[in-house]
């Protein structure tokens, strides 16, 4: 496995010290890392899951709009940040790996440096039981 760019290495280190859940995704859409606070919402320990390929994410996790209708991928703040290169924010229902659905808010930022996009970092939190 090749070394990750320094921007992602530093973000992972930063995230590992925070109390807010953080999700770190590379430019291919692979979930590279999430911190301990995120494990409670994702229903999955990172040490057990490790890196999750983009193709597996929709098999493990679910997302819908708040009314329960299907959520197009481009409405997901993480996808929007990746595609537009701008911060994105949204609220949605999130189906965790342990089968529990939660209402969460997500703020995602593109990780752009020196003209290159390295991925997206997202902070998210439970907005209320849902």
């Amino acid at each position, binding site marked *: 496995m090749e070394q990750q760019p*320094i921007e992602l290495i530093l973000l992972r280190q930063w995230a590992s010290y925070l109390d807010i859940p953080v999700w770190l995704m590379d430019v291919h859409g692979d979930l590279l890392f999430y911190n301990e606070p995120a494990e409670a919402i994702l229903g999955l320990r990172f040490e057990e899951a490790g890196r999750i390929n983009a193709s597996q994410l929709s098999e493990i996790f679910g997302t819908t709009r708040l009314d329960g209708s299907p959520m197009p991928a481009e409405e997901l703040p993480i996808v929007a940040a990746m595609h537009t290169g701008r911060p994105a924010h949204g609220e949605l229902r999130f189906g965790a790996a342990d089968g529990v659905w939660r209402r969460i808010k997500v703020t995602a930022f593109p990780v752009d440096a020196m003209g290159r996009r390295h991925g997206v970092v997202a902070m998210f939190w439970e907005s209320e039981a849902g």
Partner: protein
Amino acid sequence: MRVKLWGTRGSLAASGPDTVAYGGDTSAVELRIDDDTALVLDAGSGIRRLSDELAHCRRIDVLLTHLHMDHIQGLGFFAPLLDPDVEVHLWGPASPRFTLEHRLSRYLSPPLFPVRLRDTDNVYVHDLDPGTVELGGATVQADFVVHPGLTYGYRITADGGTVAYVPDHEPALGAVDFPGDPEWVSGFDLVNGADLLIHDAQYTEEEYETRRGWGHSTFRHAAALATLAGASRLVSFHHDPAHDDAMLDAVAAAIEEWDVPFEFVPGKAGIGFDL
């Protein structure tokens, strides 16, 4: 490829009777592929004495890791900069808003220096992106590493040999289990399998306890990275200005007792390597 250390001191030049063996000049390393061209790594005060050695070169490429003063303060005293018969190419990181030339000009202009960079006709300044470039018969790979501000490490391959130059680097910063998984270690790709690793070794373990986040490594951090990446030789570099010859010799003697899979070479100014 021949490699010679001209300045191995970090942060601040430290000349005096107690630093004769390791040298007091700040970062400057000479790389020669042939007699007509030269690569120079950083332009600390050690680059001044290197000037005479390069008298026959018609083209010199200077690779700057970053723009902290101890890595550029020798530029104004680098004789080829004022020799119209020599092409000097300066390479290094731009910032998100300013070119390398703009950033360097903050130093090479009054009131900090009497000569303006733009007044030299033979100097060409290049913004260097992360990646690979061919220079003077060598393949140069640049990548950002953990250090305050935009800072490159370099990996130079030529004549079948590879040297990794990472003079200012704190790969252990924030890492829970350093060195850990190579995928998440700053500098790993630069160092991977290098024949020679010239690496930051500014602090002792005790000093590091109060200097986390300052951007530098301990001797053990450097050794851990060299081990993880399979470097053949580790040269200690960027010695703290407070570390005198006796102290650095004592550390070198202690490292000789470590069980490490590489050859350790104390980074003394004036020593050279053939790769």
